[in-house]
């Protein structure tokens, strides 16, 4: 079919995608070039591979296994605070990992609340470092995502099914077998794959709670061979390994995953007539209450101890906060510069772009890109001097798949709904962008920018790789304070970080929706 006239150009979007591909593939090439295959993999490297896969598999299965009853309870119960709880399920996405870890330490750590409670009964304290600590943190961070994904599945079951089931007098078993299991069979593999892929590249959790020969992930091993041994060849070899693993996982996740968990309407309860008995009600209440406690307690712990440490925050923390705001701001700008043209190009029918961008974004791990950039930059300049720009760039690349998922549907709608009118008025591409495309996309741009800002604000990845002693972002500063056992200052800084991340998300998201017409 001949091509229809279009109100926008696809060129800038294709250009942005090409730059992105060049960046990611270029860093991968650099990694491949430096990788010392001759040395081969040591026993320690294989241990890292095994640990990475094991912790990701455990984290994914536990998150999803717990998410099923929680989502089921949330889907069929109405109670005061339900909306708030479902909103809370969205928070871990923008929660800086280091803040989550610090909160978990205060609840489950050696001197934490749980250990103290056990101490009252003369029991030994819990040990949080190692495999179970890593898995605990991953479940804390991903149980909400898994719950949202599965809740979406429950809400997509047509209401008529539940009505028919009530009409036919289905018991709990029939309900499970005929309605719930078929739905779960569709939703659960995707949720498992997504959480598995996320946990494969998780770095900050392993950095803080893992370590040692028995609890080192590949990402952490890259970091260690980089920072401690300055063995670029080995870092590159490990990066290659990581790429193979994450690309595989990303391909599977993209195949299986259906929703994003961002969808609107998740706070709408499903109308059901079963599960009215006392045991079912008590069970659901326990799941909901338990999850709420599990999510709220660590945050409350940070708030409580952070407030105490807030007054005496060292000046370095405030400096780091300013640095973080600047890095996150630049990163958000970069993200929009890439994502908006790409969303426009996809809206014009270049679907291939989003597939490529989504896959590259998911498959590339920050530390791998960081290692590649380090190798590329080193012949020309001192890479540590570029720590902050590199961090901003890598954060923008990491946020891109999410941003595209938010922007693309709306961009398609805007082009679809207003493109013809704009063309018939003879509106040029610049005028369409300024008068129609950007104003109509404002709410989505605000949401995407808020996510990007919060993600960049809280990121503790590539900055840990590049930063010299004198530069720090706020998450790195928190990590350093923790390393120095200044837990009170660390909690204060973590609270500041939490406030900045959630605050900047809130402001950008709100700002986008302010006075926006439907």
């Amino acid at each position, binding site marked *: *079919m001949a091509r*229809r006239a279009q109100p926008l150009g696809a060129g800038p979007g294709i250009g942005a995608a090409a730059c992105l591909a060049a960046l990611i593939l270029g860093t991968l090439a650099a990694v491949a070039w430096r990788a010392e295959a001759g040395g081969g993999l040591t026993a320690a490297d294989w241990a890292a591979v095994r640990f990475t896969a094991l912790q990701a598999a455990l984290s994914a299965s536990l998150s999803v296994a717990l998410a099923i009853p929680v989502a089921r309870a949330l889907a069929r119960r109405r109670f005061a605070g339900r909306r708030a709880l479902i909103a809370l399920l969205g928070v871990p996405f923008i929660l800086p990992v280091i803040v989550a870890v610090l909160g978990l330490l205060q609840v489950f750590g050696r001197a934490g609340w749980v250990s103290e409670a056990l101490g009252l009964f003369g029991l030994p304290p819990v040990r949080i470092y190692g495999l179970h600590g890593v898995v605990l943190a991953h479940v804390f961070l991903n149980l909400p995502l898994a719950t949202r994904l599965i809740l979406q599945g429950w809400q997509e079951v047509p209401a008529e099914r539940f009505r028919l089931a009530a009409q036919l007098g289905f018991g709990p078993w029939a309900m499970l077998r005929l309605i719930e299991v078929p739905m779960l069979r569709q939703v659960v593999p995707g949720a498992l794959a997504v959480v598995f892929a996320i946990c494969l590249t998780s770095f900050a959790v392993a950095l803080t709670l893992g370590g040692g020969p028995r609890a080192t992930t590949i990402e952490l091993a890259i970091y260690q061979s980089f920072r401690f041994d300055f063995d670029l060849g080995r870092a590159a070899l490990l990066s290659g390994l990581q790429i193979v693993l994450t690309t595989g996982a990303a391909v599977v996740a993209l195949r299986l995953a259906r929703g994003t968990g961002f969808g609107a309407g998740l706070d709408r309860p499903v109308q059901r007539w079963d599960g009215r008995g006392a045991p079912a009600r008590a069970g659901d209440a326990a799941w909901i209450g338990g999850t709420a406690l599990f999510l709220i307690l660590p945050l409350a712990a940070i708030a409580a101890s952070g407030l105490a440490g807030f007054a005496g925050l060292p000046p370095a923390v405030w400096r780091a906060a300013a640095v973080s705001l600047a890095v996150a701001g630049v990163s958000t700008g970069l993200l929009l510069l890439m994502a908006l043209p790409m969303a426009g190009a996809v809206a014009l029918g270049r679907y291939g772009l989003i597939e490529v961008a989504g896959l590259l974004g998911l498959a590339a791990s920050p530390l791998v890109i960081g290692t590649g950039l380090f190798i590329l930059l080193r012949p020309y300049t001192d890479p540590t001097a570029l720590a902050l720009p590199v961090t901003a760039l890598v954060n923008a690349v990491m946020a891109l798949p999410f941003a595209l998922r938010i922007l693309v549907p709306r961009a398609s709608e805007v082009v679809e*709904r207003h493109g*013809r009118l704009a*063309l018939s*008025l003879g*509106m040029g591409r610049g005028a369409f962008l300024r008068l129609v495309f950007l104003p109509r996309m404002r709410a989505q741009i605000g949401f995407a920018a808020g996510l990007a800002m919060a993600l960049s604000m809280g990121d503790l990845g590539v900055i840990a790789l590049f930063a010299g002693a004198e530069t720090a972002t706020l998450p790195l500063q928190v990590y350093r304070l923790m390393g120095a056992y200044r837990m009170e200052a660390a909690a204060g800084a973590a609270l500041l970080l939490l406030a900045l991340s959630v605050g900047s998300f809130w402001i950008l998201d709100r700002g986008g929706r302010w006075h926006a*017409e439907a």
Partner: protein
Amino acid sequence: MLKLENCVIDNGGFFLAADLAVERGRIVAVIGPSGGGKTTLLEAIAGFLPVIEGAVLWRGRDITALAPGARPVAMLFQDGNLFPHLSAAQNVGLGLRPDLRLSRDQWQTVEDALARVGLSGLGQRKPAALSGGQRARVALSRLMVQHRDIMLLDEPFAALGPALKAEMLVLVAELARESGATVLMVSHEPEDARRIADEVIFVDGGQAHPPLGTKALFASPPDALRAYLGGD
């Protein structure tokens, strides 16, 4: 004269053939069954659909290859004729300059155009704050300031009630007579055609027939039209 010479229009696999001419300044109704190709005909003239054979000519000039905005054509669609985030005045202003950088005189022209359709003082309202009839008037006043030779109306008033729709059609006829524009308007109601159209183009089964005088046509319709109109 608007001429479609041996045209074949491709609408994603649906093909419409048209070989017809419309005299300048005429108001022409385009009628026929749903899916027959009425919208396809208008969208081809407006430049949204490719004409794969033949040529579209306006006053002897071939406009087949021109972009939609470069044609002497202004079009109103079934819906989405106003941008919901722009005020009524801005929506009309787009007809003067699609980048909306208007001079003071041009804003005055916009005010006058809104006054002409009975909307004085409502220029600052957004479409959501206007009634359906008022929104249609805003779109019509933009059509007015566009000053294009050809106006294409693809049932823009379909969502209005019968009385309001009749009122709008009379307004369209008035505006067209004032500016001397040629009008092609799609309609489902033979009544609309009778009300304002000089001629009727009947479109059915992938074929757009040349225009015939409204009165004569309805007095003795050809078989295909008789089947479409039904009744006696």
